[in-house]
């Protein structure tokens, strides 16, 4: 039985796909058989971030409709053992994801994988609702900014009332807060909400803080998930996030401005 994790946010462009790619890859690096599913029907993106866009033959909707089977449809990553990508369809039909169809595919994948990562589209419509419905855990991706925090809160409300676990009265979806595009120097100037602010407002356990980083743009340009860039701040922050997801305690890094001053070197940060 696979653990199903949705990466969701409400608001668009906060870093869901970047995070799905990084987290899925990170879990596979740890030896878990992992598939990342792109739920953004009509706006396929994960394939680009993973650098597999030229290998897409069939997609999620083909699989649901029975036009293709799992072996034909999943794209095997060439860098990391045990990592697979299920691309979204480019159809304009927003209702292509039926609950029964999604359930059947997830059930089939569940027998073969340890983790299923669902990259949610933005918004709170069908695609986003389908991406979170079957989740055991949710990673709520949030930027330290008012509209993103409000949308995350709405998603938390939906997880608590419209997920399978809530409808069936099971143990609630396990929620994690992932703060991305964090800019410590602006926080220190009081211009931006801090990690403490956001986790206090949303009252969800923090799982990671990813700094605003040039490495993310570079990674998407070359089609390689940023977690494989182990020298980068964002890559390391995602590696830490994986450790916490697996239940290990890891200190937070990149929460304060990098000051390479003599004092910091002498007296520690």
């Amino acid at each position, binding site marked *: 039985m696979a653990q199903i994790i949705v990466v969701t946010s409400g608001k668009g462009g906060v870093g869901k796909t970047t995070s799905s790619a990084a987290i899925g890859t990170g879990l596979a690096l740890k030896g878990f058989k992992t598939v990342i599913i792109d739920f953004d029907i009509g706006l396929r993106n994960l394939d680009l971030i993973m650098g597999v866009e030229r290998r897409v033959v069939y997609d999620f909707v083909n699989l649901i409709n029975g036009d293709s089977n799992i072996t034909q449809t999943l794209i095997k990553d060439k860098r990391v053992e045990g990592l697979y990508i299920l691309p979204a369809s480019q159809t304009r039909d927003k209702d292509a994801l039926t609950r029964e169809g999604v359930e059947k595919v997830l059930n089939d994948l569940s027998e073969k994988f340890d983790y299923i990562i669902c990259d949610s589209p933005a918004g709170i419509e069908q695609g986003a609702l389908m991406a979170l419905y079957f989740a055991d855990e949710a990673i709520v991706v949030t930027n330290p*900014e*008012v509209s993103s*925090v*409000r949308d995350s*809160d*709405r998603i938390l*409300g939906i997880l*608590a*009332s419209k997920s399978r676990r809530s409808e069936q009265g099971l143990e609630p979806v396990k929620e994690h807060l992932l703060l991305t595009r964090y800019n410590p120097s602006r*926080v220190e100037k*009081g*211009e*931006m*909400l*801090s990690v403490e*602010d956001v986790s*206090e*407002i*949303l009252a969800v356990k923090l799982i990671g803080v990813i700094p605003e980083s040039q490495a993310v743009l570079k990674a998407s340009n070359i089609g390689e998930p940023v977690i494989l860039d182990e020298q980068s701040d964002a890559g390391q922050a995602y590696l830490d996030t994986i450790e916490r997801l697996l239940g290990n305690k890891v200190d937070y890094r990149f929460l304060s401005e990098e000051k390479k001053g003599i004092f910091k070197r002498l007296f520690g940060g």
Partner: protein
Amino acid sequence: MSLLNYFRPKKTTVANQAKERLQIIVAQRRRADDQGNMLSAMEKDILEVIRKYYLNIDPDAISVQLEQNEDDLSVLELNVTLPDDVK
């Protein structure tokens, strides 16, 4: 709390304004959701009671709404539509 914090005027930063606004929004959302969940649970129970003692009506035939009309008046409205052939 570091000594610096005593000198920093806490209330005036834009981050603090954002935080206060968000705390109000989040509290409102939670209250509204709690109420919504309470009402749909009530609806389910009432449906069961009607089915047990009276007749097997459709879940759509029942609606429960709570309206806050004025500060000191709330109206709990329960609507059950009985099928035509029950007279």
